[in-house]
């Protein structure tokens, strides 16, 4: 198969080919969707440890006072009380309160920040940051200098111990600098799987060396974007382009707890108006009554057969052995415990609405 030259490649592209990964376009990148198979990679992540190539994601470094720099106005989460060495999930909004991206803020120092963003939105995010930051702040887009590996699974700590002295002290949603293969790099205890896990930020060109060093432990297996989507869906985590986009408000997406309405930020007025007017749609999570799975763009119907919304993500859940999905519906239908139907053109399969996560036995906080 001819390589599509318009797609970017991570430094691990050749490694993926050697491992016979199936490659797909994703957010402008050629990425591995699966290696051995989604179910095998699933079991390996939930029970052992896997590594994901996440070099495609974007990283920005910012220096400046959180308020004077304008950073506080760019993200929805509270920065004033974020301790050094901690991460916080937040959103980048437009003036209408729509989501430009979801991101994680790392507070490196009193006035030093790293922002981690999605691959497909990175260029647009960078423009928004540069346009909105005060000239006194410094902004560096280090996305193409920064490789990243996600090590996820209950054995991830054990596997990293010989490679990263002191890794065991890292608490959930915190980070620190560690010496790894002669480099001093940021490692955070974060991830997108619901399991104990770490993200290692590493010099772009040397990422294959880090990959090899981790794979020296035979317990480690590679995992692709296919299983990443299954794992995040079982946790009820949003995916940009599915549960989030420029026309969806974080309040509708059920992410109100990541929005600090007490501070000033871009999009706040729009969100306050939505709050007083009432939301038109809300995110719903649901479990299929069978092994049949909802898929993106399936329609959602009420018990009476009226269309009430649309599916944004769906998959088969290996944990509960039924189809699971998320979508947006009229607010009354988003409450848990209600029967709904989903299908392509007509209501085909029954499902029950529920709270997230779908899977709560993960090693995330162990």
């Amino acid at each position, binding site marked *: 198969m001819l390589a599509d030259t318009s797609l970017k490649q991570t430094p691990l592209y050749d490694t993926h080919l050697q491992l016979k990964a199936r490659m797909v376009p994703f957010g402008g990148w050629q990425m591995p969707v699966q290696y051995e198979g*989604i179910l095998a990679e699933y079991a390996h992540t939930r029970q052992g440890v896997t590594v994901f190539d996440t070099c495609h994601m974007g990283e920005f470094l910012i220096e400046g006072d959180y308020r004077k720099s304008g950073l506080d106005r760019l993200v929805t989460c509270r920065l004033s009380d974020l301790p050094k060495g901690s991460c916080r999930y937040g959103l980048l909004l437009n003036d209408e309160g729509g989501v430009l991206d979801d991101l994680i803020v790392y507070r490196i120092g009193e006035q030093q920040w790293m922002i981690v963003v999605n691959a497909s939105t990175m260029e647009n995010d960078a423009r928004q940051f540069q346009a909105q930051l005060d000239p006194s702040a410094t902004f560096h887009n280090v996305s193409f200098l920064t490789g990243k590996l996600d090590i996820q699974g209950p054995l991830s700590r054990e596997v990293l111990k010989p490679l990263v002295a002191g890794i065991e002290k890292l608490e959930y949603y915190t980070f620190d600098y560690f010496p790894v293969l002669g480099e001093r790099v940021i490692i955070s205890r974060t991830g997108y799987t619901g399991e104990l896990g770490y993200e290692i930020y590493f010099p772009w060109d040397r990422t294959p060396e880090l990959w090899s060093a981790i794979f020296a432990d035979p317990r480690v297996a590679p995992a692709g974007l296919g299983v990443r989507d299954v794992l995040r869906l079982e946790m009820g985590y949003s995916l940009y382009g599915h549960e989030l986009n420029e026309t969806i408000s974080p309040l509708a997406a059920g992410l109100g707890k990541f929005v600090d309405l007490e501070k000033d930020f871009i999009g706040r007025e729009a969100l306050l108006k939505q709050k007083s007017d009432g939301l038109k749609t809300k995110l719903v999570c649901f479990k299929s009554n069978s*092994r049949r799975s909802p898929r993106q763009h399936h329609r959602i119907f009420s018990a009476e057969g009226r269309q009430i919304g649309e599916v944004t993500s769906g998959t088969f859940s290996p944990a509960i052995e039924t189809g699971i999905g998320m979508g947006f519906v009229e607010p009354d239908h988003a409450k848990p415990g209600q029967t709904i139907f989903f299908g392509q053109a007509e209501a085909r399969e029954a499902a029950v609405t529920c709270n997230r996560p779908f899977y709560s036995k993960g090693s995330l906080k162990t």
Partner: protein
Amino acid sequence: MEVVEHFYYTKEHEWVSVEDNVATIGITEYAQSALGDITFIELPEIGTEVEQFEQFASVESVKAASDIFSPMSGRVIEVNKKLDGNPGLINRSCFDKGWIAKIELSDPEEKSNLMNAQEYQKFLEGLEG
């Protein structure tokens, strides 16, 4: 990619093995590999009359769903019940234990609308090139 010598094939990657007046139907190595881990199959009901190339079953994998079309016309006389509890059998043994249904043929001459193993192999090479 594996193909079986005496089977006939469709462009939708179903296979059919004809013995006397009965055809056994399944999906090919190419199809199971493209779908990935199969998690659900909707089997046809016994007694259903199907036309050649008419949809008569559907499969779902973790991340995809796909219709299955009958390679020939006839009446469904048997379905592989083992697939209900174990749809992954199609991934592990698509040409043998993972067969989907058997039909009693109404027109065995319809084989001429299908590809033989050599033709299907060429067809696959065309897809991969």
